[in-house]
Structures are given as C-alpha cells and as structure tokens.
C-alpha cells in the first residue's frame, strides 16, 4: 500500500526535476507570471550574459503595480513609472514573452488575470515575483512568490531551487454566518496563528466552509496565506474549480477537457494523509474582522475594542502593540465600530474580483458616501471592470459617490498616484496594513468589501451585519 499523500506532496513530487545532493530540489515551473516592478533586473541579468528565456510560452507578463488607474493616455505623468513599463515592453518583445499592457482589454492585476484567463490550473507550479502569488493556490496549484534573482533563474532554467516546505492543514468546520466573508475567515486565522504562524509551511485549507466557497472566495483565502508567513496556500480542486475553468481562453481545450479533469481528480489529499501541523477553527463562530494595528495579525471582531498593550503576554508584544497604536493614533478601549475614516479602498488582488464588487455594490446601492470621505473602487482587471459595467455596478458606485477607476494594484501599495496622505485613515479591502503601506503616515484598516463599502457610507467603521 502506498503512503497517503497530501495535495501539496502530489504537486511537489510531480515537478521534481532533480534532487541536489545537498538537499533542495530543482523544481519545474509550469507558469511564470511577470510584472513591471520585480522583473527589469532579471531580464537585464539574462541580457548581460547572453542568456535567453528558456520557455517564453510558459511566461506571461502584465503591468499592474505602478500603472495609473485614472487617465491612461500616454505619456504617463510619472516618468519613472513609464521607464519601468517601457522596460517590460522592451523585454517582452526581445525575449518573446506575451504581454498584456495598458492598451490590452485583458490587462489587470497579475493574480486576477492569471485565473481569469484560465492560465492557472490545478496541479501546476506557479511562480511570480510577488508575494501574493499564493492566490493561485486556490486552484490546487503550488504557487509561490519569489525574489528577482529567482525570477531570473526561472526565466533562464524554467526551474526553481527549493527545499521542500512542511505542510499545515487549516480546517474550517461549519459554514460562515450571514454577513461574514472569506476575508473575515482568513483574517481570523491570521489573528490566531500570527504573521509568522505558518512560516516554512504550505497551508492547505480544508473543511465545509472552504468547500462551500466560490473560486473567488477561495482566491481571497489563499491570497493572504503569505500574511500568515506561509510559503503558499492551497485548496484541493473540485467541481467548483472545474466549472470555473471550463471554457476560459487558456484552459485546456474541449477536446482535452475530460482527460484533464480526470487527472485533476487525483490531486486532492488522500484520506489519512499526514500534515506536519494542523489547526482547526469553527467557521460559524467567525465575525466580521477589522485590523487595528500595523500587521494583519493585529485584528479583531468589528464588535471589539482597541486592545491594551498591557494585556499582551510578552515584552516584545507589548512594545509592538504600543508602537502600532501610536502609529495608528488609537487609544486602548476605543470601540472599533464608530472609528471615523477619511478614505475607502475597494481593490487589490485580495478583494477586487466581480463577486467582491457585487458585495460592495449591494451595500452602496441607493446610499451616499459620507461627506468628507473619498472612496475608490479599483477593479482587479479590465475584464472585471467591463463585467461590472455590464451589470451596472459602475452606475451604483458612481451614484453613491465612489470613484470607478481602471485596473491596477493602486492604493494597495501606493506605487502610483493613489496614496493616502499623512494621517489619513482608510477602510481597505487590501491585504497589508503595514506602516506607510498605502502612503507614508497613512493608517490602514483591513476588512471585507461589504464592510469597506458600509464604512464609506457611514463615514466610520460599522458592523455590516446591522445593515441587512
């Protein structure tokens, strides 16, 4: 009898090209996604020594990190950003890599367009010079973020040198309560295990709550695996996965579909497969989450309060909480619901697919953004934007006073003109509330799209469950 294997074990073992005597594996990469910020030095490295891109047809590029989300006419206002976009265009052309540029109707955040195009598929190894590559694990792929030197390595060899990570199962019993979302589930997990809670591990999300999720909800969960320190996050493929992929432009053809799906059905973890660690949570007990601090683990229920540093166990934690509260300008004991905000961001690779926009629009419909609040909706891709417009979501948002913009990373990391001003407080659907992440001196509270839309209308953080 063969040893039961996890989903991750199966994907890993089927991609090992070679095991170096010193330990790590040379792991084959099926899909390499490339964007403008972490690739120019990698292409330059190839050029310097006359190397080529080994498998350009397995490499796909887009522009997302520093693109403008307002006026897209060229030349761009930001000459330095324009240099990076030009460099990617030049590199894509020179090395024969497909590029979805600003003029393409398929342009968008790299982690939104990969799945949208059907490029991301079960059982693949997917890499990108971006930590939120973990998103693609929602399809049962092993998908991980890498640095620029590794980008160059993958371009040159179509492989990555990696030691096999350990595995960790996060099982969610039961179903989410009304008004609670995939974002709340993953934030709750990170709050429990901490931002290094899954370091060195591949997280596999299992349980009824995960099975009930759509692909977009699964992507939200896997996206934030990196915020728990995980090497990657994965969810076993099932009928939901296959239905999402069927007919997408780069999914297997109709002719190959049956055979491919049959192979994908072997991917889920075998009964009795062993994980190095396990954690189990009650999905039904999860409440809408909101972060109060400067990392995603500093999070609590919307019904909660700003914590007191004295309540934390270690001196290091107390010092970190004190620093966070000083940066966030928050006083211990303050209820989170009611905290005034000046900015709202519905966007990012975590929460800006069509279902996210629908959820936010449902809250915004027939209401108005509060006076003094600037609220932005930044679709994850131009395709999501077009779909939103077909459904009339743009009209709902605009009528309510939200800005309806073009696709890009935007205010999630503030590399373009979309930034918080010093001291501004933002209700954000993105993934990181680090100091200065959305702009130097800006203060970020992470939450779900419905919660962010509700905050825009109220002018302060609110429990969206009271808004049904």
């Amino acid at each position, binding site marked *: 009898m063969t040893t039961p294997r996890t989903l991750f074990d199966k994907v890993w073992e089927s991609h090992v*090209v*070679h095991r*170096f005597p*010193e*330990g*790590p594996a*040379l792991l*084959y990469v099926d899909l390499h996604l490339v964007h403008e*910020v*972490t690739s*120019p*030095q990698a292409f*330059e490295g190839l050029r310097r020594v006359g*190397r080529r891109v080994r498998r350009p047809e397995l490499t796909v590029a887009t522009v997302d*990190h*520093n693109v403008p989300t307002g006026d897209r006419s060229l030349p761009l206002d*930001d000459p*330095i*950003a324009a*240099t*990076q976009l030009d460099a990617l265009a030049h590199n894509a052309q020179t090395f024969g890599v497909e590029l979805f540029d600003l003029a393409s109707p398929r342009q968008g955040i790299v982690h939104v367009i990969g799945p949208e195009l059907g490029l991301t598929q079960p059982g693949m190894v997917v890499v990108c*010079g*971006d*930590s939120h590559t973990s998103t693609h694990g929602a399809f049962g792929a092993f998908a*991980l*973020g*890498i*640095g*620029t*030197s*590794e980008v*160059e*390595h993958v371009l*040159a*060899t*179509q*492989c990555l*040198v990696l*030691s096999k*990570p350990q595995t960790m199962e996060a099982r969610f019993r039961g179903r989410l309560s009304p008004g609670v979302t995939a974002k709340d589930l993953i934030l709750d997990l990170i709050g429990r295990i901490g*931002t*290094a809670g899954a*370091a*060195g591990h591949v997280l596999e999300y299992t349980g009824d709550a995960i099975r009930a999720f759509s692909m977009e909800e699964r992507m939200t969960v896997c996206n934030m695996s*990196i915020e728990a*320190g995980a090497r990657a996050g994965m969810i076993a493929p099932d009928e939901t996965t296959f239905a999402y992929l069927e007919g997408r432009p780069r999914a297997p053809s109709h002719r190959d579909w049956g055979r491919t799906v049959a192979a994908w059905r072997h991917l889920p973890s075998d009964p009795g497969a062993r994980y190095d660690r396990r954690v189990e949570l009650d999905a039904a007990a999860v409440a809408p989450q909101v972060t109060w601090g400067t*990392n995603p683990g500093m999070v609590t229920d919307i019904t909660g309060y700003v914590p007191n540093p004295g309540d934390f166990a270690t001196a*290091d*934690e107390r*010092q*970190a909480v004190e620093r966070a509260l000083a940066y966030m300008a928050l006083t211990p004991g303050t209820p989170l619901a009611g905290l005034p905000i000046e900015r709202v961001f519905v966007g990012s690779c975590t929460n800006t697919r069509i279902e996210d926009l629908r959820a936010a629009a449902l809250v915004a419909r027939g209401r108005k953004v509060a006076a003094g609040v600037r609220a932005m909706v930044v679709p994850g891709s131009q395709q999501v934007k077009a779909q939103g417009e077909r459904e009339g979501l743009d009209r709902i948002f605009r009528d309510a006073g939200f800005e309806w913009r073009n696709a890009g990373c935007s205010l999630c*990391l503030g*590399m373009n003109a979309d930034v918080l001003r*010093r001291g501004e407080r933002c209700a954000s659907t993105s993934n*990181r509330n*680090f*100091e*200065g992440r959305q702009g*130097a*001196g800006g203060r970020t509270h992470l939450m779900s799209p419905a919660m962010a839309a509700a905050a825009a209308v109220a002018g302060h953080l609110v429990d969206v469950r009271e808004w049904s």
Partner: protein
Amino acid sequence: MTLTPFVRHTGKCAALPRANVDTDQIIPKQFLKRVERTGFGPALFHDWRFLPDGSANPEFELNQPEAADATILIAGANFGCGSSREHAVWALAEYGFRAVVAPSFADIFTANCFQNGVAPVRLSGDGIDEVLRRCRAGRGVYRLTIDVEAQQVTDDAGLRAPFPLEPYRREMLLRGLDEIGRSLLEEPRIAAFERSRT
C-alpha cells in the same frame, strides 16, 4: 551573477530589536521604480530613518552614533516579512550590512539574502538575547564574527552560538556561487523532464 564568497566576516553590530519588520519598512514602495539593482541603500528604512521634512530621525536606532559603520544588523523575529521585493536585500547590502542576525526570518526574504551573499543568521532565543545584551553594553564597539564555514557566531568575550544553514545555501555563500550557472549544468535533466511530460 557571481558573488563575493562569504566564509567569515567580523564587523560592528547595530541593533533593531523589533519583531515583524516588513520589507515595506526596509524599502518603501516609492523607491521600487528603479530598473537597476543599485541605488537602494540611501532609502533603507526610509520612513523610519527620516522625518517628514527629510532630516534624520534622531530616535531611529540606525541613526544613533554607535550604529555608524555597522555591518551586522541584530533584529527581531520574523524579519523581512511581507512583500517579496528583493530590493530590501539590495538596500541592506548597499547600506553596508553583510549579515542579519535574528531569531527568525520570513521565507522569501531568506531566499533573497542567499541570492545576494547576505547571511541570514538565525539564533535561538537565548543566543539572540545574549547578543543583544552584549551589543547594548558594547555601546558602539561591539563586534561579532559570523563564521559561515563553522556555522557559528562568536565575539571576543567568549560568546559562541551555532546557527543552522541548509548545506546547499552554505555552499552558495562559501563559494559565491551563481545559482543559475549551477542549475544550467542540469540542462539535460530539465530537457528530459520536459520530454517525459509531453
């Protein structure tokens, strides 16, 4: 890219004993638009190092006189978490750091360190506490030796703390290896693997 081999290094220490220092702090996004691997050192820890008016923040650890010319950074747990930006390691290296000593590191940051010949030195809780204590007591003259070959950290006053290194990564540091060149030696295996899948 060929790197300078890292066998052992002795240098001055600077302490930044904060947990969860993320790569957004190490190199904020407004500096990521360069298309070169250089030019990031002046922006290292920018938003902590400088006040909004551009002057040096007198309270920041690396702005203290005793931190001048340090080549070894003593840091808190989960150092380098968050974004995969290798620019964080380029900034640390260009500023002058050859090694970061911490109780733990984020995974992608660790990989990026090895690619650039910067040693991520993981010390146990007791080890890091002792190094921090001695660094503070040393008031700007405390020096450590990072010995990659022997996988240990030592000082002049008898400290001796081992640290783990995967054999492959240790070899890379010791020999300043070009990882791509090495992997390309396996080209026949890569080609055979590709043939086996079609």
